[in-house]
Every structure is written in structure tokens, then in C-alpha cells.
């Protein structure tokens, strides 16, 4: 390309931009764009302009910039933008975060895990030690037990609520690490042990008591996420990962495991992460996340631009194993149809579901409900209220509903179904 040609392209690009016919970004690679009428796709040009060189780190397309929502505070959370995502794996930088005292800056080489209590050999492990053990990877969901709670109750039914605001405290990753059972075998658990205290190395030393049986079953000392070392907000350099259990038990920045014969009853299990019931009691150590499904499309603030064929998409998961079935209703719950389950269908992992839907243009309500392999069916909000009273905030796994107005505008809520 001669200097003269470059000058021409440059001039044409300027003219095009000034006339507002075609976006300037397109013109930079389409020398003939100035000739195209508005609204018509550009034809392949010859010669084509060369692209960029490779780079050390990839980046998203400028027009594709999904973001978490969050509140700036020491004890706070950020929410995964489900409406922008596909498949089941959450990009690591969009995985939700919940922390109780900010994200600490920990140097991996300086980090130590102390294992003590009812063991034959109290031990410390450096990250290099832990990463030398046989390594396993598993694709599994993580969900905060507060996901979907607190924003929606008997007194308050917001309709301008996005799936990100409602259920953004759920994400899925491929987690990599060493099974806790491998490390406990190394330390030698003594007879009579039944519980563990897991403690983080963040500012408030966030802790939870965990039954030893779970630690020996499928708990992971995780240091990897989606193929790389996990990010600081996820617990770098080391976190506990308890598949299928409420997110706060997967203690981040893990620095201590004490083997005990009883729960320690730390603040987060005698106050915060407990569930008051209708009979004046409160459920304690409610670890497991029951089956749940959410529609991720179409959801508020999307508006269907026209009637016709649309695919309802969503995610379903269960802390008890695999998803066996997801049903979708497009008539406010009067009738239900089996949605397609998109493989792989993994235990304690999100499963993508899809349902092809011909929208007539009339107002309707769409819902989804999941059934897991134990036969547990995702309940309605009425069933949860009857079982637990109207104001439980955690473990709100009821069926979600979205209203499609005749204008195509989608809003959250059960509407007349309440």
C-alpha cells in the first residue's frame, strides 16, 4: 500500500465518520465503506487490511464488556451477569465474590496452611507442598446461600429486577486442587474426630465449622480455577471448596484446619448463616444447596422485539447431585414442558437448559422448575413460606417467574400467582 493510498483511506474514513453513515471503527478496515448505503452489510473488500499482531494476553471485543454489579464495602458482594453468559462455565473475572472483610493481598510463597487438632502429626504446608500432591479438577457450581434472598419477600415484590441482581451470587468453574482427604491422611486423623474448623487468612479470619464427613468425601483444597491459579477475590492462593454447599463454607484464603470433635459455633453459624423458621426455632448448619433453576433469557430489562420463535435459556443445579429434569412453563404455570438439557450434566454443577418457544405476542408468564436425581422438585415460593415462614432469607430456591408484556417487555415476579 502506497502512502497515497493510506492518505485516501484516512480521508475517506474522516468523511464517513463526519457524515455519520458508518461507524468509524468499521471504516478503518473497510476502505470502500464510504460507498455503502446505510443499513446494508459491508461487502468483503479487496485488498483486506491486515489485523493486529498476537499479544501476551487476550482481551474481550470492545463491544462485549460484561460486568459484575457490586456495592463498595468491606463486607460486600459482586454479582455474575448471567444475562450475558452462555454454557455453564463462568469466566473467572465474572465469578461472583462475597467477602466479609475485603480481599487480602497474599503472597503465594509466604502462605502456609496449618493442620492441627485431633491429628497424629500437626503440620504446616506451603503452596509448593500442596501443589506437589496428586491434583484433581472438577467443574462445580458455587452459590451463596443468600442468593435470591432479601430482595424478594412477602412484603416487597420488585419487578424491575435483573437475573444478575436476583441470582448473581451463583457461578460455575473448573476447580483444581488437592482433595482434603489426601492432606488429612498425611496428618493422620485421630479416632473420635467428627468436625473441622476451617479458618481464612483475611482480615476477619472468616471461619466455619464443617463436618469431617464432608471434608473426607469431596472437599477440595483449591488453588486453580478455569485453568489458571485462582484470583485474589476467589481466595488466592488457597481456598476450601465444598461442592454443593453454601458458598460461605468454602472458606477463602484458607490458612488453618483444626480437627475437632464438635462444632466451634463461630459467629457465622450462631447468628448470620442460620434460618429462622415459623415455629420460633432457627435451622442451623443448613449447609446444602437444594435444587434450583433460573431463566437467564429472556429476563428484565430485555424486551422481545417481535413475536415468533425464541429460545428460553437458563441454568439448573443441585447440591445433592445431578439435575434430572428441568420443566418450563410459558403460561404462568398452568402447563409444563420438559426443557432440553444441554450436556454435560455433571453432579453438583450447573446444567444449561433450553426451551424453544413461539411467543404469540400476548402477555404471559414464564417459569422454570428443576428436579434433581434424588427426586427433589424445586418448590414454589408458597411452599417455602408454608414450610419456613414468610421471611427466611437464605436458601431461597423457589421457582422464579418472568412476565412478558404484550409490548415484549420482560419484568420479574410472579404477579397474580402470589
Amino acid at each position: 500500500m502506497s502512502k497515497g493510498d493510506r492518505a485516501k483511506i484516512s480521508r475517506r474514513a474522516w468523511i464517513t465518520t463526519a457524515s455519520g453513515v458508518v461507524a468509524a471503527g468499521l471504516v478503518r478496515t473497510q476502505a470502500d465503506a464510504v460507498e455503502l448505503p446505510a443499513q446494508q452489510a459491508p461487502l468483503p473488500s479487496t485488498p483486506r487490511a491486515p489485523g493486529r499482531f498476537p499479544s501476551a494476553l487476550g482481551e474481550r471485543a470492545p463491544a462485549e464488556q460484561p460486568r459484575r454489579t457490586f456495592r463498595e464495602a468491606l463486607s460486600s458482594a459482586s454479582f455474575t451477569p448471567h444475562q450475558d453468559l452462555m454454557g455453564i462455565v463462568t469466566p473467572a473475572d465474572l465469578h461472583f465474590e462475597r467477602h466479609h472483610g475485603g480481599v487480602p493481598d497474599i503472597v503465594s510463597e509466604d502462605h502456609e496452611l496449618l493442620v492441627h487438632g485431633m491429628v497424629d502429626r500437626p503440620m504446616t504446608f506451603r503452596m509448593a507442598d500442596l501443589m506437589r500432591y496428586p491434583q484433581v479438577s472438577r467443574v462445580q457450581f458455587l452459590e451463596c446461600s443468600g442468593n435470591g434472598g432479601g430482595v424478594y419477600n412477602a412484603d416487597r415484590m420488585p419487578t424491575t429486577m435483573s437475573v444478575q441482581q436476583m441470582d448473581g451470587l451463583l457461578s460455575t468453574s473448573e476447580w483444581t486442587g488437592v482433595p482434603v482427604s489426601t492432606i488429612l491422611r498425611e496428618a493422620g486423623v485421630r479416632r473420635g474426630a467428627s468436625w473441622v474448623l476451617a479458618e481464612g487468612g483475611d482480615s476477619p479470619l472468616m471461619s466455619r465449622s464443617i463436618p469431617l464427613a464432608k471434608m473426607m468425601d469431596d472437599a477440595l483444597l483449591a488453588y486453580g480455577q478455569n485453568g489458571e491459579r485462582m484470583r485474589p477475590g476467589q481466595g488466592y492462593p488457597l481456598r476450601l471448596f465444598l461442592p454443593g454447599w453454601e458458598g460461605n463454607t468454602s472458606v477463602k484464603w484458607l490458612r488453618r484446619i483444626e480437627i475437632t470433635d464438635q462444632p466451634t459455633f463461630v459467629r457465622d453459624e450462631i447468628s448470620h448463616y442460620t434460618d429462622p423458621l415459623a415455629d420460633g426455632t432457627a435451622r442451623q448448619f443448613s449447609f446444602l444447596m437444594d435444587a434450583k433453576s433460573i431463566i437467564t433469557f429472556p429476563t428484565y430489562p430485555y424486551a422481545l422485539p417481535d413475536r415468533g420463535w425464541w429460545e428460553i435459556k437458563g441454568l439448573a443445579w443441585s447440591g445433592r447431585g445431578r439435575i434430572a429434569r428441568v420443566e418450563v412453563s410459558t403460561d404462568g404455570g398452568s402447563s409444563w414442558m420438559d426443557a432440553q438439557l444441554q450436556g454435560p450434566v455433571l453432579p453438583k454443577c450447573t446444567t444449561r437448559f433450553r426451551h424453544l418457544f413461539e411467543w404469540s405476542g400476548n402477555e404471559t408468564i414464564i417459569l422454570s422448575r428443576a428436579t434433581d436425581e434424588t427426586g427433589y422438585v424445586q418448590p414454589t415460593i408458597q411452599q417455602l413460606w408454608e414450610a419456613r415462614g414468610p421471611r427466611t432469607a437464605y436458601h431461597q430456591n423457589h421457582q422464579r417467574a418472568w412476565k412478558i408484556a404484550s409490548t415484549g417487555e420482560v419484568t420479574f415476579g410472579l404477579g397474580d400467582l402470589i
Partner: protein
Amino acid sequence: MRALALVVVLAAAACGPATNGGSESAGDVGAGSPAGLPAHAPARFGFGQEASEARVAMWDIDVRPDGVGLPAGQGTVEEGRQVYQTFCVECHGATGTEGPNDRLVGRDEWGETGPQVRTVGSYWQYSTTLYDFIRRSMPQLTPGLLTADQTYAVIAYILHLNEIVPEDAVMNAETLPAVMMPSRDRFVLDDRQGGPGPVR
């Protein structure tokens, strides 16, 4: 302790189905043990270092309901008032009810839905958790700052504000575990079981 034993049994039961569909089918190939270790793996790998008693003591800060883990020291309600005014009042308010952070004081009725606010007086199950939590996490911007005497003192003050201990109370490793919290017996085990049974 009977209740605790039940917790363990239930927790183990909850893990049952997880074992069947859990680690092996989640991607481990040729799993020779629950951890996915091959048959020829050694009983011990020998990685990591044995930790001395002194090393364990550096980090072993938790306190159990029976008082195990409580250090020496003591504090009175009046001493606690001073500690509170210095380190706590900014976030928890003049009387422990004003915020802006968690409300500490109040004996709200549970009613049919639990108390509106989960204060120490209305909700906390064990008094020892106050020591564990304050040593672990408070004050929020400088956790670990308080001495043992200051911690016992501010606990005495908070318990007194909640009308749980009298004005002349002294908190230490013997008296603190003996404090009976108003909501001690309100907590029940998780009875959710999965399956097609009733919603819990």
C-alpha cells in the same frame, strides 16, 4: 452433647448421595480411593512440615462453647464501657443500637418469623462466641488489637447492655462460658433431606 452427635449423623447422611454421585463421577478417572489416589500411592507422601506446639499456638485462637480456648484475663462492665467508647462506638452506636454496622443490643421477640434484627441478646446462641468473634474480627479496621482484659471487659459491657449479666459482672475464662444466652435453645438441626418428600 446428644444434639451434637445428631448433627454429625445428619451431616454424614447428607453426604451419602454425594459420595455415590460425587468425586468419582465428577471427572476423576481410575479413582482408586475417594481422593482419586492410584493404588500404588504411598500411605504418606512426606510433603509439608511437622508443626511445633508453639507454631500451633500462634494461630490456634478459636474459643468453644465449653470455654476451651479462652485465655487468662478478666474485665468488668465498667471497664468495658471505656473499651466500647474507644473502639466500638463509631460503628455500633452510643448504646449498641444505632449502627451504622450490626446492631448489638436488643431483646426483640422472635414471634412467628424470628427477631427483626439478630442482636447478641435476641439471637446469639453462645456467649463464648463473643470472645471468638471479637478476637478474630473486631475492631473491623484493626482486628486483633484488643488485649484479653479489654476483650473480656467489652463482652461484659455488651452482655450487660442486653440485660443478660448484672452491672457488677466480671467476665473471665470461668464466668463467660457459664452465661446462658436467651436464644440458646432455639436452634435446630437441618432436616432437609432432598427427594420427593415434603418441602422443608
